[in-house]
């Protein structure tokens, strides 16, 4: 029999209250919401980057390069320890994750092995075959090294992004060696990308007095030197001959800032070493007075000043051909430190603020028009019942938005499309019920009986039919990326709420109406 179920009334009221509770914060702006009283929810629907504008970057850390470096360090360690203990060797070389060496005297192989083991890091396995030693990093060591590299990279990227003045950035690890950076509302993504991607390894070398021209005439570089490009390709000196030995690195920097040089009026980057660095720098500048220092950033010379006097205060200036922006960027890079491994941008999605605003406007308009079209159509088709279904649609949208707020979902443009689509598809549950009621009335049943049966029969079909759409939505959520995930979320929540509104809410309204007014004829 058709009757009002008290529990359903209670359930609907509870859902209404919850919906209102969660929808309220969305009326306010982001800053106002924190000022709301404590008993109210402060959760809001977030706008995706495609709606508020911003950059999404997928970065990959080249952790293999760190392992390669470690392998080369390992080769150095082996060479040192074998030389020290005067064991003869040949064919010493590095692999991607380890090194090989051949010991000339087979009898000394055990001695060599022990000798090397004492002088190298843990986590390295040594295998011997005949007179050959095979050294390789253990799997755990490789995994840890990779993980550490990615962690450190994330830290450096975070510092750089924070320093660039981006509001509310999100920096997260994804998978093994990837980092997802989300920069909402960013104005100049190119600059931030350039900041993030730079390795920014700062090294202090001495310049060799030999000029590049002289070296070319001789046909070879002086021993222990290498050729380095000038970072400013327009400068007079295009290349330099730099001594290989690294005297000091950027790791010893305590601070860096862009300032204007009082004498020249040009932009410089002022830096300050920590205690240990200052001491070293003092020694370098004392030992090499009147010679030229070479300051290299990522293996390019950014400045090659002459040391006029010993610098003991641990402070100095880098004067290159800087603009205010490039000086500031370099200071940011020096403060944040260098990346442990090169980073590559695998994917970028940037939406400008104007497109975001247009998309929101377009979404609102499409939702309003779609809503009106469906509402009018339902009334034309189902008369009084159409109004009930329309009420369900309105409630459905409110419920959908409140649930999106409750889980603090991210609303994207495809997500808005999902809401509009829900308006069209969510009436399906009601349509199924109404059509069934009509059918039962046609077959000569009483009004009450028809309504009762209509809901009873339709419920199975509604569950069956919606389940398949849910499967599609869940798979989309699982496999989709950012904006598409937003679509999957609104679509699946829309399906769930539509089942609630059709099977419980409108049933309650229809039952209440029929029991109260006892109509002789149903306008459906």
């Amino acid at each position, binding site marked *: 029999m058709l009757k009002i179920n008290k529990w359903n009334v209670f359930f609907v009221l509870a859902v209404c209250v919850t919906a209102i509770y969660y929808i309220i914060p969305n009326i306010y702006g982001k800053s106002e919401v924190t000022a709301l009283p404590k008993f109210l929810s402060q959760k809001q629907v977030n706008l995706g980057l495609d709606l508020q504008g911003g950059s999404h970057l997928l970065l990959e850390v080249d952790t293999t390069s760190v392992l390669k470096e470690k392998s080369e360090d390992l080769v150095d360690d082996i060479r040192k320890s074998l030389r020290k203990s005067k064991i003869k060797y040949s064919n010493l070389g590095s692999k991607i994750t380890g090194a090989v060496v051949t010991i000339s005297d087979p009898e000394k192989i055990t001695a060599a092995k022990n000798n090397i083991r004492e002088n190298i890091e843990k986590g390295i396995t040594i295998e011997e075959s005949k007179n050959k030693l095979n050294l390789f990093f253990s799997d755990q060591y490789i995994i840890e090294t990779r993980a550490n590299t990615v962690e450190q990279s994330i830290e450096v990227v975070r510092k750089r992004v924070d320093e660039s003045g981006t509001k509310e950035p999100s920096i997260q690890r994804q998978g093994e060696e990837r980092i997802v950076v989300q920069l909402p509302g960013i104005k100049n993504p190119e600059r931030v990308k350039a900041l993030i991607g730079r390795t920014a390894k700062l090294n202090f070398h001495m310049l060799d007095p030999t000029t590049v021209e002289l070296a070319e005439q001789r046909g070879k570089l002086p021993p222990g030197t290498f050729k380095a490009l000038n970072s400013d390709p327009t400068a007079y000196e295009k290349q330099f001959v730099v001594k290989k030995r690294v005297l000091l690195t950027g790791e010893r920097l305590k601070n860096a800032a862009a300032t204007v040089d009082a004498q020249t009026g040009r932009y410089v980057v002022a830096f300050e070493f920590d205690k240990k660095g200052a001491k070293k720098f003092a020694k370098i500048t004392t030992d090499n007075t009147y010679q030229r220092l070479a300051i290299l950033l990522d293996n390019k010379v950014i400045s090659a000043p002459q040391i006029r006097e010993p610098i003991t205060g641990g402070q100095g200036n880098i004067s290159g051909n800087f603009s205010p922006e490039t000086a500031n960027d370099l200071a940011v890079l020096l403060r944040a430190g260098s990346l442990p491994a090169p980073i590559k941008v695998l994917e*970028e999605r940037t939406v400008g603020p104007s497109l975001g605003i247009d998309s929101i406007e377009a979404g609102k308009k499409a939702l309003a028009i779609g809503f009106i079209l469906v509402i009018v159509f339902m009334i034309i088709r189902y008369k009084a019942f159409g109004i009930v279904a329309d009420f369900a649609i309105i409630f459905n949208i409110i419920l959908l938005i409140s649930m999106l707020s409750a889980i603090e979902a991210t609303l994207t443009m495809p997500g808005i499309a999902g809401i*509009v689509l829900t308006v069209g598809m969510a009436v399906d549950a009601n349509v199924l019920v109404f059509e069934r009621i009509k059918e039962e009335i046609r077959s000569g049943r009483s009004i009450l009986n028809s309504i009762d049966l209509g809901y009873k029969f339709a419920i199975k079909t509604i569950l069956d*039919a919606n389940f398949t759409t849910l499967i599609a939505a869940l798979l989309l959520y*699982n496999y989709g990326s950012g904006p598409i995930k937003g679509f999957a979320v609104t679509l699946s929540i829309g399906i769930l709420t539509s089942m609630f509104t059709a099977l419980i809410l409108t049933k309650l309204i229809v039952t209440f109406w029929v029991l109260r007014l006892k109509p002789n004829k149903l306008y459906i």
Partner: protein
Amino acid sequence: MNFNINFFKYRFIAFALSAFLIGLSAFLFLTKNLNLGIDFKGGIMIEAKFSDVPDLALLRDKIDNLQIGNSEIQEFGDSNTILFRLEKIDDGNITQEEIIQKLKNELDEDTDYRRVEFVGPKVGKELKSIAIKAVLFSLIAMFIYIWFRFSGWQFGLGALVALFHDVLSTMGFFSLTQIEFNLASIAAILTIAGYSINDTVVVFDRIRENLVKTDRELKELLNVSINQTLSRTLMTSITTLLALLALFIFGGEVVKGFVSAMMWGVLIGTYSSIFIASPLILFFGFKKVEEKS
């Protein structure tokens, strides 16, 4: 509305039409292929809005002179907005940032960059395999669901054939219109799949109900079931199409491709659940006794 249409009279016409549709889709797919977006192909896409209507020929010349690989230029939405698509040249000499910067240098300073997207070849390949997986898994999951829910493999297979019919012809639609095929297209295909099965399930549910309730001959029973649910099938298709129409006209350029595919999908899904899925049950040799046992 009370329908009494003999759909089975048209089943061979429908089968022939569908066979033609699938054949055409396959032909289009093989000859014209899909207009793969950078999501799957990799490359750079820039949507730029100019303050004045730009000279397309001049723009094309400028970009050809940059020598940054193959490029495509087209109007996007209005004549002030241009969509640039650049194939990524992966020779290691030039990074994508540099390519984007080079292009930006050629354009006016007050150009509004509405969208800048770059997908590396590695990510493109990954997205491709993810997309294929998503579509395959959802088809399998739906098939399994139908199989369990309705006794008789004929139902599962009928629904699956209808589903493939809809998905394949949607691919044909993408191929014919050359609408960009991207991640949103995959979302469209999966939603169409869900919608199509949804429609089919409603008819199947009614068939199942009628199998228990009436003693009609199977062919007639199927026909009655389709007619009984026809009103609902059409109603839901119309409201969904109305919502999609609003999105198509007012929803902006970004979702237009997605929405047009969805519209096609709703039409073809409705057609297939009426003309393909149910007649196939008969075609596959479903017998009433089988249901009762």
